[in-house]
């Protein structure tokens, strides 16, 4: 009796402070950067960087859910007759958070800084086709990019996670903790030590009537169970990216809304280094690929939140993909290929993994089971997560990795060209390189699509990567909130229309 009375008094006094007046929208991220997190777009390496940089910055051109270029700070663009000069026309009346107007000089500085080797941005490698002297401010609101060769899809290629527009003259030292951009929200409280990041609505945002939310409170919770509890209890409004377990747990829960991205984006893969035994034999690689039951991987590792992949970095749902079909599992073929390669009794390989990324360990275990039937003995080596990308990744013959979704030309180049910085399979194929590079200069979309498919065919047959699945990013909104759809690429987040009926708008 006494206890229940005490309980209800406690409940009354405590819930009184709950969900009272105007509060910020509470946005929860899943991957933390700790004190290393940065507001400098040139170093947008971690998802935690992306969560906040998308609040304060805009890009010249952004990408829609199909990775097609859409206008952002550039309202229109055109290309010259010879295909070597692209002209971008900027929006009028755009101002930075400090009140200065956006001009062409800011755009020129942003790109020149990015490709300057002294900056040391990992984005420089993606913009190798740009020539600093070719980036010119024609007038206050016109920028031209002139390249040596034809770059058929330049608007798309200059849009990656590093190419957000900063102010003319802004340096890394300043940008690390001060994000003055043209974006929908203005940096307000930024206290990493207290884990408090608050961003206020930009009242002068160039898109009329946006953003809707008055302010956003950003926090990263790395514990998945805690995120589930937080959204179920109604004390947070949005989880920007949720794992399969969260989706399974929250499916059918009326307190939340589960919002998947329009398409599957990133992939988890197994990388075989093609210059290492036994993977230097293409037949072994093909056998390793043939044992995969791709649908089974989707059903278990992703609990259904994704689509099967065919060992190319383009999801089969994309019209540019090699095929929309799923490559069937063929254990007999795998055995035959192994025998042909001189391993009639099967092979034994070490597969390195770690809890360094979502589902890495599960994928390794599933692969171990599938491969066993074809006489491939896989020893799963589960490494420490904290040093995985330092010690194991790209340094052992066979390992698990994953990549966020990217546009078609970027995905084909980033990890597969012979001289790519992240050539995970150490795979060098001149025909593939030629097709991918030539496709960039091909102006005819139909021909380009054909070249892209040919390149993928080579990659799927000969390459060092097993890409069994593409995962679908999923956001979770609290019931009563709306206006956020995850992009297939985890580094693109649009908070402009995010709103909650019972929070300040």
């Amino acid at each position: 009796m006494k206890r229940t009375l005490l309980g209800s008094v406690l409940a009354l006094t405590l819930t009184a402070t709950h969900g009272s007046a105007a509060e910020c929208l509470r946005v929860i991220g899943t991957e933390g950067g700790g004190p290393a997190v940065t507001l400098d777009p040139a170093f947008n390496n971690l998802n935690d960087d992306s969560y906040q940089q998308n609040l304060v910055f805009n890009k010249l051109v952004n990408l829609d859910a199909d990775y097609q270029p859409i206008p952002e700070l550039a309202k229109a663009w055109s290309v010259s007759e010879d295909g070597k000069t692209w002209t971008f026309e900027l929006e009028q009346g755009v101002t930075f958070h400090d009140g200065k107007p956006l001009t062409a000089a800011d755009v020129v500085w942003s790109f020149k800084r990015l490709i300057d080797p002294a900056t040391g941005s990992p984005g420089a490698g993606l913009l190798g086709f740009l020539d600093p002297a070719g980036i010119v401010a024609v007038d206050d609101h016109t920028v031209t990019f002139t390249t040596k060769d034809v770059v058929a899809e330049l608007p798309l290629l200059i849009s990656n996670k590093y190419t957000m527009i900063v102010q003319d003259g802004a340096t890394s030292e300043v940008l690390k903790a001060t994000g003055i951009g043209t974006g929908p929200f203005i940096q307000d409280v930024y206290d990493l030590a207290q884990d408090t990041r608050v961003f206020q609505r930009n009242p002068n945002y160039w898109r009329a009537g946006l953003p809707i939310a008055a302010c956003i409170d950003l926090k990263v919770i790395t514990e998945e169970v805690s995120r589930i509890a937080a959204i179920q209890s109604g004390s947070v409004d949005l989880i920007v990216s949720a794992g399969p377990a969260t989706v399974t747990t929250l499916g059918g829960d009326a307190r939340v809304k589960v919002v998947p991205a329009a398409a599957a984006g990133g992939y988890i893969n197994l990388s075989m280094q093609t210059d290492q035994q036994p993977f230097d034999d293409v037949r072994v690689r093909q056998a390793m690929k043939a044992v995969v039951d791709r649908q089974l991987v989707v059903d278990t590792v992703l609990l259904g939140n994704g689509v099967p992949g065919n060992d190319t970095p383009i999801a089969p749902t994309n019209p540019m993909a090699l095929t929309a079909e799923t490559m069937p599992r063929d254990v007999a073929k795998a055995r035959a290929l192994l025998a042909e390669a001189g391993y009639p009794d099967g092979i034994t390989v070490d597969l390195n993994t770690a809890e360094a990324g979502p589902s890495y360990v599960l994928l390794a275990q599933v692969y171990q089971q599938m491969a066993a039937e074809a006489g491939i003995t896989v020893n799963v080596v589960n490494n420490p997560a904290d040093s995985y990308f330092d010690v194991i990744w790209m340094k052992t013959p066979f390992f698990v990795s994953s990549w966020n979704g990217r546009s078609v030309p970027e995905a084909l180049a980033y990890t597969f060209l012979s001289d790519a910085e992240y050539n995970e399979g150490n795979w060098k194929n001149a025909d593939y390189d030629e097709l991918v590079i030539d496709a960039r200069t091909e102006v005819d979309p139909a021909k380009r699509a054909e070249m892209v498919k040919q390149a993928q065919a080579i990659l799927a047959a000969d390459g060092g990567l097993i890409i069994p699945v593409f995962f679908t990013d999923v956001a979770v909104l609290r019931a009563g909130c709306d206006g956020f759809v995850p992009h297939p690429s985890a580094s693109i987040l649009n908070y402009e229309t995010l709103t909650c009926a019972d929070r300040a708008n």
Partner: protein
Amino acid sequence: MTAIPVTGRWQRTPVAFRLGAAMLAVHVVLAVFGPWIAPYPQAMMMTGPPVQGFSLAHPFGTDQLGRDIWSRVLAGGWIVITLSISGTVIGMALGAAIGLISGTIGGRIDEVLMRLTEAVLAIPFLIFALLIVSLAGPGLQGSPVLLIGVVAAVYLPRIARMARAAATDIVTRDYVLAARLRGEGTWSIARREVLPNASGVLLVEFAVRAGYAPVLIGTMGFLGFGLRPPTPEWGLMMAEYRNLMTAQPMAVFGPGLMLASLVIGLGFFTEGLSAMLGKRGSLR
């Protein structure tokens, strides 16, 4: 005080002791014969649909890969018991040796050893454990041997301090003085006089420590510093399945119940033992 009343008649032992011994016996049987009792191989995928709750075929349900959690729990018993016992034994043996000798010798060596012990004890044990794992480097991280070492290292200074306290008390007794007068050396006194008289306390301490070891190992797994999947260690399984806690509670509570019953069994056993010995230990 007699050292260990092993010969005491079973009926006369305290109820707690009998209950604890019975629970431990069940655990040992399950740990040894687990693989034969288990309905499926522990690593076998798709023994049923993924993430399913209780059914007759899967008493603890299935996990994300459709593995039978009951089979995994059975496969993990011997790992939990082996790691906990061997880690505790090593920590105990070294700690007791250092503590007893230090306490028996006394003087400057004792002073230095105990200062060092105090210094190590000043580092919170979980942080101390994490430091050791980090120091071991990526090659050893996640290996059972390292975990045994961590358990031993965490317990060593605590047991050394306790053993020393017991020893300094014992060396003032008449029979030790008598032994000194007979001309026995320090080592011989430590072994013949001090150890048997301290063994009651140490035994109770052992049971308590061994009971906390699996909890410690599980916590290390939770923080990413312990064993790694697919090892079916119970604490690790709880950590691994915690994301599914509301979707498939048995995935967490199955291994949790097993761990709790093991620790509770050890607890009863200890309680009975301490009642028989007239001494008690504290857990930390």
